[in-house]
């Protein structure tokens, strides 16, 4: 079928320069990618859910207002009931507090919404930074090969050899003291978390980009660019980079959930987001102490984290399948 179409296309076009290509139903790689993605219902639902989460995060103050909840950091003693042994215990979900309140009397719905916002903010910033570093390192390693590649690839290997969480904990706690580290460039707070996550995850992108560059640089258009006198930088960023966009989008979508989880893990361990800012990971950590009396404190932040990570993973898988239909998992 496609063979026949190609043949017609070829004959019609060489008959005269006016023969248009579009009319014969030729599709660009991007159109093919989009057509395959459109038939993947799971990925589309996941994408829809992510859009919803992003909207919730962006309009967090309005969402909280709309639900009639109090701001995330406003405690109140009015919301406690007396437990069995006379210890005050937070109240569960009600029409006033959709997700209940936490042990400090703060509205949990509002904290989950703001926690999502912070999670996404950190994950997107850290992912952006990882992609930027990984892209540049991968481009240089794959393009120049030789000792540049050897040096950069070994650096990646060394970083990958570290136990991720221990490394992150070490750096995060070192940078969380006083004026931060790297000459005050990384200040305690969000920037520490972003920097630590980016430092760990750029290696993933760098490896993928390097591999892609190794194959793209052998295509003749790279040699053609060299023959017209284009500089190495121009070839890397103007000729090779546009051919990496599709895989980059896929792998970026796949490391966002990893970064969300890493942020949650760091916050869980107490070196991530600093209180009183809400963080899903920190909420889970705090909830373990009161799980017997306040199940909602663990259930809602946990569910939010689970659904968010699941949605990104499903979308990432869908994008990957749409990009490489031959490697698609059997359904």
């Amino acid at each position, binding site marked *: 079928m496609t063979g026949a179409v190609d043949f017609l296309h*070829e004959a019609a076009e060489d008959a005269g320069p006016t023969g248009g290509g579009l009319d014969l139903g030729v599709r660009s790689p991007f159109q093919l990618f989009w057509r395959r993605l459109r038939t993947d219902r799971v990925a589309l639902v996941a994408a829809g859910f992510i859009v919803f989460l992003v909207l919730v995060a962006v309009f967090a103050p309005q969402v909280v207002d709309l639900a009639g909840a109090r701001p995330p950091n406003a405690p109140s003693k009015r919301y406690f009931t007396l437990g069995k042994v006379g210890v005050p215990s937070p109240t569960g979900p009600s029409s006033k507090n959709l997700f209940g309140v936490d042990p400090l009397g703060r509205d949990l719905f509002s904290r989950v919404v703001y926690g999502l916002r912070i999670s996404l903010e950190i994950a997107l910033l850290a992912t952006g930074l990882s992609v930027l570093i990984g892209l540049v390192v991968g481009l240089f390693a794959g393009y120049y090969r030789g000792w540049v590649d050897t040096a950069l690839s070994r650096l990646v290997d060394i970083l990958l050899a570290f136990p991720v969480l221990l490394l992150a904990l070490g750096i995060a706690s070192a940078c969380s003291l006083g004026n931060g580290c790297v000459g005050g460039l990384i200040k305690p707070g969000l920037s520490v978390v972003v920097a630590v996550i980016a430092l760990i995850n750029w290696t993933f992108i760098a490896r993928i980009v390097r591999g892609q560059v190794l194959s793209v640089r052998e295509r003749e258009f790279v040699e053609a660019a060299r023959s*017209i006198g284009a500089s190495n930088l121009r070839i890397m960023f103007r000729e090779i980079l546009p051919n990496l966009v599709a895989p980059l989008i896929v792998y970026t979508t796949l490391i966002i959930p990893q970064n969300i989880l890493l942020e949650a893990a760091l916050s869980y361990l107490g070196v991530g987001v600093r209180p009183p800012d809400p963080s899903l990971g920190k909420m889970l950590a705090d909830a373990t102490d009161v799980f017997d009396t306040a199940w909602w404190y663990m259930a809602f932040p946990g569910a939010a984290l689970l659904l968010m990570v699941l949605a990104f993973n499903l979308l990432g898988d869908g994008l990957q399948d749409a990009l490489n239909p031959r490697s698609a998992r059997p359904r």
Partner: protein
Amino acid sequence: MTGERILEVRDLVKQFDVTRGVLLRRETRAVRAVDGVSFDVIRGEAFGIVGETGSGKTTIARLVARLLDPTAGTIAFEGRDVTALRGSKLRPFRREVQMVFQDPYSSLNPRKTIGSIIGEPLAVHSLEKGERRRPAVQALMEQVGLDPEHYNRLPHEFSGGQRQRVGIARALALRPKLVIADEPVSALDVSIQAQVLNLLRDLRRDLGLTLVFIAHDLSVVRHMCDRIAVMHEGRLVETAGADELFADPRAPYTKRLMAAVPRIPA
């Protein structure tokens, strides 16, 4: 052989080292793709290089276009030795010598529009800036028989023949003196080969170009070239005028090559 020499190639050698390991680099063996080749190209002529696959034709094209560094030997263009030039020092040479590539499918960046592909040489050399770029590119498109309206289309919307026209337009954008065509039609459908060959021949005549034409197809080279060099295993075995070569092949390899052309019995 009379006239001014535009290109002089002397004792050109290209050896590809097959190495293993990075820190403890060991040479395991070496392949001599081009082994002591010398020839001259006269201004305005079409010089053909024929040979079977693996004979080193494409390596010669890449060496002369300075896309590869020779292991030994010299290349002089218009009397200037360009063998040692590198990086930005090569830019003036690049304006004079351009290449048409073999595979019109991989020689055009699939992510760039036809207009920006043909305009890229102008952009790299800061020529025809701003508003003047588009008309300049469209004039080139017309010159090679492409519809200037297709300026914003992507390569995948074109057939092999049209893509090769794009490749030719790109090579002509800098108004070079010498064009190296490396098997420009071998990837194309037979029915389209003639169109592209005739285009190259007409452009050469109209623009007064010097052409180095590389092919494995004897009839194609005979159609295109004034003089022909025959290559075998990295060496030139014979160089002669086109008619002379076909009438009276000297080297035993040339005779074998000609005998190998399949003929349909009458």
